[in-house]
């Protein structure tokens, strides 16, 4: 197994860009299934191990991709970091704060976006960015400035006063991204950020994430799209059945698995690790 190599800061000083910003230690998340879920997942086991003993550490200035099939546990992991779920076992710290003990301080630092968290359909992007800015405790001036920056970057001005309900999928996603970044967070966690988007909009999103990385932020995304992981991510962690089975830069992963490309590497890993449980899911 490969680990990303990073030199220990020789001076021992606290240069921000060398600090570990997200640290996951042995995260395990077990869901208790109700009868209906058990029927849906065709299992008699009332417990579902969604994430199994997963550890990760992320540094500023990198884009990290969690790559895995549907049901691998990517969203669950990201929700645990975002303090929406409590780890069954293990600890997570974000910028030095524990996600359980200091959850509000953790939330202050992260911009979090997933497909199942949506903007209120009855309000406009302009209303919502203000609303979330206020919930983050920002003053009106800051909110106005951020709104101008983000709406200009993502081209939202044209529809900023339309109800979210009336927007296309792409417009909604742009608005959701802008709103999630209103407080200019140091850590950006996007769950499948390009799913459902057309190529142009998807490209706009990935370009923005690269810009954020260059500005020294941590970017953590999940994806099941091989090409996205290949092109965008500095490091990739492959998860199958809740376990991290491989981690490293693209070159490192290809070297370890003796594969031509990421897809080959993934199938190699999937055949060795994926058979452990049948319900590993598949690419769709």
């Amino acid at each position, binding site marked *: 197994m490969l680990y990303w190599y990073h030199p220990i800061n020789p001076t021992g000083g606290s240069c921000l860009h060398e600090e570990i910003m997200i640290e996951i230690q042995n995260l395990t998340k077990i869901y208790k299934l109700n009868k209906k879920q058990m029927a849906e997942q065709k299992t008699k086991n009332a417990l579902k191990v969604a994430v199994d003993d997963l550890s990760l550490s992320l540094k500023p200035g990198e884009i990290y991709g969690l790559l895995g099939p549907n049901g691998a546990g990517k969203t669950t992991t990201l929700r645990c970091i975002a303090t*929406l779920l409590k780890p069954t076992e293990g600890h997570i710290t974000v910028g030095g704060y524990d996600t359980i003990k200091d959850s509000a*301080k953790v939330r202050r630092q992260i911009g979090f976006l997933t497909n199942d968290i949506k*903007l209120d359909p009855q*309000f406009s992007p302009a209303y919502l960015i203000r609303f979330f800015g206020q919930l983050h405790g920002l003053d009106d001036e800051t909110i106005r400035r951020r709104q101008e920056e983000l709406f200009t970057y993502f081209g939202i001005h044209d529809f900023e006063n339309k109800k979210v309900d009336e927007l296309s999928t792409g417009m909604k996603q742009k608005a959701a991204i802008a709103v999630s970044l209103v407080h200019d967070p140091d850590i950006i966690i996007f769950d499948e950020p390009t799913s459902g988007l057309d190529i142009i909009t998807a490209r706009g999103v990935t370009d923005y994430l690269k810009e954020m990385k260059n500005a020294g932020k941590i970017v953590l995304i999940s994806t099941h799209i091989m090409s996205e992981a290949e092109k965008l991510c500095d490091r990739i962690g492959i998860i199958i059945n809740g376990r991290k089975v491989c981690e490293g830069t693209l070159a490192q992963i290809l070297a370890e698995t003796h594969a031509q490309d990421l897809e080959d590497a993934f199938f190699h890993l999937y055949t060795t690790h994926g058979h452990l449980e049948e319900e590993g899911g598949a690419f769709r």
Partner: protein
Amino acid sequence: MKALRVVMKKELDRVFHDKKLVFSLFILPAVMMIALYGLMGMLAGQMMADIAEHESIVYVVNAPSDFKNLVLEDSDLVWNDAAADQVTALKEEVRAGEADLMIVFPEQFSESVANFQAGDPVPEIKTYYNPADDYSSNARDIFGEYYFPEYEEQLLKERFSDLSVLTPFVVDSAEGQEEESSIVTNEGQAEGQFLGMLFPYLIVMLLFTGPMSLGVDAIAGEKERGTLASMLITPAPRRDIVLGKLFSLEILSFLSAIVYALSMIIAIPFLAGDLTSSASGVKSLVNVTSVLEIILVMVALVFLYVAVVATLSVRAKSIKEASSTVSVIYILVVVAGVMTMFSGNTDPALWRYEIPVYGSALCIQKVITGGLTLPAFLVSTLVTLALGAVLTWMITRAFDDERVVMNA
């Protein structure tokens, strides 16, 4: 606290920035209520006027002349003398609505009355009318309540000259008493009783419709749509998010309740048809204490309703699940309201006021009919508030539970 205000403002904006929602929540119910009551009042008034205007067509067989004189002296009904062999044909006419009433006196009626001896069979007058026909039953009522008793009295006078022969004793004779005490209801009280019967039921029921339609959507709906989580990933304390939602729901529900109550007060005179008498009935309602009492009861009730709807919505996995459990509660609320309609005039025992919703309905009833006691008011209001507070606390606790807010 700042987050609480921000959330509350958004929830209020959701309604007030939506013209359709404002219309359906506040304007439509008021317009409908007033229109409905107005229509009902107009139709009822028209029917009464129509019946009153109608000249009753009456056939009388073997009519004694003194009876005919007595009736025609004071009425403009269409009197037809008929012969005994017409009875069968006339019955058909009454049934068909061509005649309103047929009265059949026995032959030699006046003679048998005049020569009456103790032990003789009492002569019998027969009437034929159609109870399903308004004109017909109205004609029968006029004779039954007015002309027959008067004719009877006239004949008795002829027989006994002094009618006190027939009066072995009297009870509560009017002499020496205030005249009003013998009048059972005056108009204001009757109005009060009508309102007293209808109002608690309507208020208790209508107050629930606001929380029901808004609360399920604001909580179960936000969970289902995934918009609740978007607030949970901000640093705002979860308690502020919940309370902001609950407060705004309480404000909206209370406003809609006020709209309902006001439109009812405006509408009831239309129903009563007579504006002046109803206005006096409503006036008895409009004194500072009773208005204050009703408002306090309503505020407490809204607080409880919002807490109940929110409790059920927060636990539900979908809007559908929430609406179905909430509608079960709605049925219980309606039952509690209906129960007060049949509680009669007796003073309910104090423990009845401890029953949530039913106790509040009783309070409103007693405010309107007069005679709400302070202990009853306090017991009911405190129980309602306490229950609402416990539920609210449980909801804020539930928001910390990932299985509740994330359906995890």
